[in-house]
């Protein structure tokens, strides 16, 4: 499992990856150093802009790279080579997941470091919110990686992209479902809404701004919630992979 994870993670040193992350780092430096003096004077807004840029980039990165990774390895028979070794499909799957997640989180850590340094050079000390938002983003990326793994194993590369997009769209709106359940006047309908809420990850959880005193508990619960979704998605992925004909 870990060798496969390491092989996957090691690809962050490839030139194309470095170029992508390098460009993004420049953008972040510009945001941290320039935008607040040129356009905005609000350091809080600079932090939000930077974190938003990181989130958008890493979401897109995960969306494309993770969804493509396993189908392409299967297509090129690389997966068959791995599995010809004494490596189970479960370990292969977990290895790919850990590798892609590690690459994403490593990239986030690097970008966050660049961004924070630039802010410090500018004379603005990153707030505790930055750490909270970075942790929240990391958990979202972990969940997204699991979703991409599941979608790519389930439907292949292109259709997997559509599945991830659809689930994310549903996940962005599914926060309405518990509210509808609460506001429902019929108990059966309420239960239906509540069950429907667990058919997709609630992405509002990864955007919510709790009061500062609740951030720690919120992150702990978000971590468990993310773990639950990862277990579910990877569990289904493993089952599909077990029965998948890779020959």
């Amino acid at each position: 499992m870990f060798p496969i994870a390491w092989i996957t993670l090691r690809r962050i040193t490839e030139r194309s990856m470095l170029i992508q992350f390098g460009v993004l780092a420049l953008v972040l430096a510009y945001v941290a150093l320039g935008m607040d003096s040129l356009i905005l004077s609000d350091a809080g807004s600079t932090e939000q802009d930077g974190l938003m840029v990181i989130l958008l980039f890493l979401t897109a990165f995960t969306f494309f790279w993770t969804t493509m990774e396993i189908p392409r390895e299967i297509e090129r028979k690389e997966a068959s080579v791995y599995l010809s070794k004494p490596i189970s499909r479960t370990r292969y799957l977990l290895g790919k997941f850990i590798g892609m997640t590690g690459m994403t989180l490593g990239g986030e850590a690097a970008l966050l470091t660049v961004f924070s340094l630039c802010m410090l050079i500018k004379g603005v000390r990153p707030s505790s919110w930055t750490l909270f938002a970075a942790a929240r983003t990391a958990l979202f990326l972990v969940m997204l990686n699991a979703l991409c793994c599941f979608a790519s194993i389930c439907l292949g590369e292109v259709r997997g992209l559509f599945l991830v997009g659809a689930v994310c769209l549903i996940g962005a709106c599914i926060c309405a479902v518990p509210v509808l359940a609460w506001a429902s006047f019929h108990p059966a309908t309420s239960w239906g809404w509540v069950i429907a809420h667990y058919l997709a990850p609630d992405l509002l959880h990864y955007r919510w701004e709790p009061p500062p005193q609740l951030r720690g508990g919120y992150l702990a619960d978000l971590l468990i919630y993310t773990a639950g979704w990862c277990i579910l998605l990877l569990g289904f992925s493993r089952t599909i992979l077990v029965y998948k004909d890779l020959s």
Partner: protein
Amino acid sequence: MATADADPSAASDAPPPSRPAPPAAPVIAVRADHPVRPRRIPEPILLLLVVAAALALGVPADRRIRRIQNLADQLSRREQPVFVPFSDMLADRVTLKVHWNQLLDARAAALTRGDADALATATYALLGLADAHQEIGVEMSLPYLLDLVQRYGSDPVTIKAYAALLQPVFLSKTLPNHPAYVQKMVDFAAAQPGGGIQLLATLADTLQSNHESALAIKVLKQIRASGAVRFDTEASMRQLLAMLGPSDPDAADLKSELAALHPLRAQMSDEAGWYAKFTSAGGKGVLRKLETLRAQVPATPLNAFTASADARLIDLYLREGRFRDAVRLRRRFTDYSGSDLENAALFVQGWKPPGDAAHHPTPAKQAAWVAANMPDSVGVNTERWRALLLAGREADANALANQLFAGPMSYLAKPAADLTDAAMGRVSRLSPVLVLHPPEGDVPLEMQGAASVLTAEFDLAPNAPSTSASIHTHIELWLSSDSFLQIVQADEPRSPPPKPVVTKHDDDPWHDEYVDFFTAPDCWPNFANHWAVTATGTTWDAREEIAFNPNQSKRRTDKSLELGLKVTAARTATGWTMRILVPRKLLIPPGSTIVRFNARRGRHDMHAARLVNQYYTWAPIPGIDPRLDLMGWLVVPQ
């Protein structure tokens, strides 16, 4: 991107597995030549375990996160910290639910207090909310309606609940109980004034729409039992006739009564059409126009519409000082029973404006039309009572007064009893009374040469213990056949006296020192004449409408009245004096009579360093307000 040969080499560099693979046959047959550890747990069970673990972790965490978010509450306050899709729609749903929950809370509180009215109010609010919003559905209110009628089934507040439970939407769940509900409604209707005809008619309509003919006939027969067919029961009785078989013993009578309504409707249509012209007359010379219109129909016997017209004419005659004409018309009411008033009112309620007969007037226009042309049953019955008093039929008058001055008009019971005493000549029962008498000495210059001069004098008394009793105000009244003279002699210890600020006729005199007088020539609350003069002789006169109503907010003052006051005022060594000469015509009927009367002095100096605000009256009046219902009696003897 990884190359195809890089990864396998890296994988081959990896350390060997810590546990050798067992020799069992592989479950996953990727390659037959490499060993795969046999699976100990069947795949479906493993998947179930994974799902269970995911749910065990995710669901509680999700619930805790949502508790922190408290999204429903944030949406209801529209204060959520991040963008939420469909937030407006969700906020509306949440607001509706919050409203529903508030009503449930109000209902629970009413249950705890045992407050039937509050419980009914909350339940009907739930019913209204459920009926108005499709997402709730009126069926949601059923348990609350059932609970209400179960707890307070005999209380009239549950009428609406019974009516709702009989609606078709609840038919499948309440049908077995309909006979009991209908019986309750019939009982409630029987306890209502007029037999609850409207309630029963609505109930019969509902039952007919439910195809519950037997119950509908029962209700319609209850309406039938209320008496002969009238305009308000006509539609219901036609329903009943259609539902009754020809063998029913009442069918023939009912048919003939319904047939008899046709000529009555035609007659009332003519009468109401004439009255509509009468009520629409206005503008300059309205009294002459009304007299002309009244002359177009027979003076007697009166019907609801001609009696209403006469009541209006009497009021106008009294305001014009035509007291004899008022009495002449009033005597016509002696033999009028007023029995057709209710039917006439019912006819007008369903009558459309003649010009709009072919059209459909708006509800507001229809309501205005009905209100304008409705027979004036209060005015007519008041005149009937006055006519009976004029005729000396005190017992009949009292019987009518007991019906008339009850309920919302009970505030008139005391003035009615006083007026009965006055009309019957029981002056000793009236208080305070001032009886005019022939003069014993010289008459004032203004009265010299006048016929039938009478006089009286009195002092005003302070109306509060804190008001100085040593400041005297003496008033002499002089009445002739044409004029009414008041001579006022007032003490004023302040020197210099307060500077006058009112200098123009009909400006409010209450900002100065003043004296004012009140008379109600008809001794009744339709109006009272009111005139005031300041210490420097500035005059003010007006007519106080709805004079006896103790609810001052409903009283209004008509300053257009001009009494023709002539005033002379002068300073004296001890205060001031004043002579006010007023034509008698509008104030006191000719000949021997009794009128309501009062006099008052106000010591108002708004510009003094310390506000002086004192009142002296003849008929005692507490407080600042003139309280015209507390006026005394001025007796003009033969």
